[in-house]
């Protein structure tokens, strides 16, 4: 069997580099997603509560949502170090670009969540004398978090998808490891198919969790996600 032969030679023999690549993918996605959550929350807060800076936040969201991730990645990688002095490494640039892109989408998701909350919630909190910050933290955030959870998890799937592109700026992720083997042996079939399946399984699992969260929260708390 030619296929099994090649599979042994190119995939199983290179499991070490491939798993190292997978680890880099996970590492990049984890930090990018974490940073995106923080940035998204901050931008959403500015967008909703701070009068003049609001327009900066709108421009930020629109800019990062309307530029393709590859353009963003190359821009952050080549331009930012010279203009702003950071990021200093390619991994930093990859994480930052992915985070900036996602933070734009997440800010909009959070905003939809907050705006979908009935006004009575805040008024009731006001009426029984809960302070402004405490209202946000103890009344609004827990409800919004449940409503937006499925979409936030979906955004993680998008981050993993986009993270395939960081191989372009020479971050040694799974895609990079695969393409390296392909360029070495000129036998793309087995390696690329394996990688495609690996990414599929990873992203499918994340979307599965998102779907589960959607159904679970909806039946348990009677929440309808804002779309």
């Amino acid at each position, binding site marked *: 069997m030619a296929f099994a032969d090649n599979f042994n030679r190119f995939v199983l023999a290179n499991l070490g580099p491939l798993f190292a690549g997978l680890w880099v993918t996970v590492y990049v996605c984890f930090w990018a997603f974490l940073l995106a959550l923080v940035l998204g929350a901050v931008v959403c807060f500015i967008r909703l509560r701070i009068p003049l800076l609001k327009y900066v936040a709108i421009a930020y969201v629109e800019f990062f949502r309307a530029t393709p991730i*590859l353009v963003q990645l190359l821009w952050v990688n080549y331009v930012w170090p010279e203009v702003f002095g950071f990021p200093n490494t390619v991994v930093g640039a990859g994480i930052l670009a992915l985070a900036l892109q996602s933070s734009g989408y997440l800010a909009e998701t959070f905003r939809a969540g907050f705006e979908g909350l009935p006004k009575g919630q805040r008024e009731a909190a006001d009426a029984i004398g809960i302070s402004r910050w405490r209202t946000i933290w103890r009344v609004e955030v827990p409800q919004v978090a449940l409503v937006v959870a499925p979409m936030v998890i979906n955004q993680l799937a998008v981050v993993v998808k986009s993270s395939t592109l960081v191989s372009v700026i020479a971050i040694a992720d799974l895609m990079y490891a695969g393409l390296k083997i392909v360029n070495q042996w000129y036998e793309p079939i087995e390696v690329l198919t394996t990688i495609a399946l690996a*990414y599929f399984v990873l*992203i499918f699992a994340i979307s599965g969790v998102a779907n589960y969260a959607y159904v679970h929260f909806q039946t348990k708390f009677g929440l309808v996600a804002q779309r």
Partner: protein
Amino acid sequence: MSPALRQMLDPTLFWEYRAVLLQGLMQNLSIFAESAILATVPAAIVAVVQRGRIAPLRWIATGYTELCRNTPEYVLLVWVYFVLPLVISKVIGSRFRLDPHAAAVIGLGVAYSGFMAETLRAGLRSIHPGQAEAAAAIGMSPFKTLRRIILPQALRRILPDLVNQLVSLFKSTTIVSLITVQDIMYQVSMISVAEMRPIPLYTGAAVLYCVVIILATQLFQGLTERWRKRGWS
């Protein structure tokens, strides 16, 4: 202002190469249009099959959409460009080649057909079954029911979603530069290697994309607003 920042905001280099860059943008637009058209075919078939009665076909359709939706576009593109020609060559027994442009159209078309199928299916499902039953009761054929009753309503409902997907398809056309289609990002990389000045070019590309996408979205929404609202207000 620091020199690097001034260089970043200086558009002259970008303007100097406008002819080449515009050619690249045209390449993007043609791939966008071709793959959008290509994507609607499997999307429509899958959406119809998933509403049908034959269970094995439904499973295949679901598998297809999940596979398309959950595989990264870049991986799919590279797979179509490198692996698909080899597989076809082995099957037909002679050498088969796929040029980068065709590979890009197929890759992106397949990737987005999954999203479109899902949207289309949601749209068809959102139309109350009573509509089709009423149409059947007054003697419309199934095809005419679809064309005159179901589709006009379903398309109006899914239009915003569809626009979002077309926008992300257009954004995804940037990655075709990675399989050596000479699109705008390819030209930008080439020029910045030749000129040794990446800052204004990459900034220009980012701003250009931002402007093109925001303008196109607004324009499209403005143009379809009347059609979408017709008979609804």
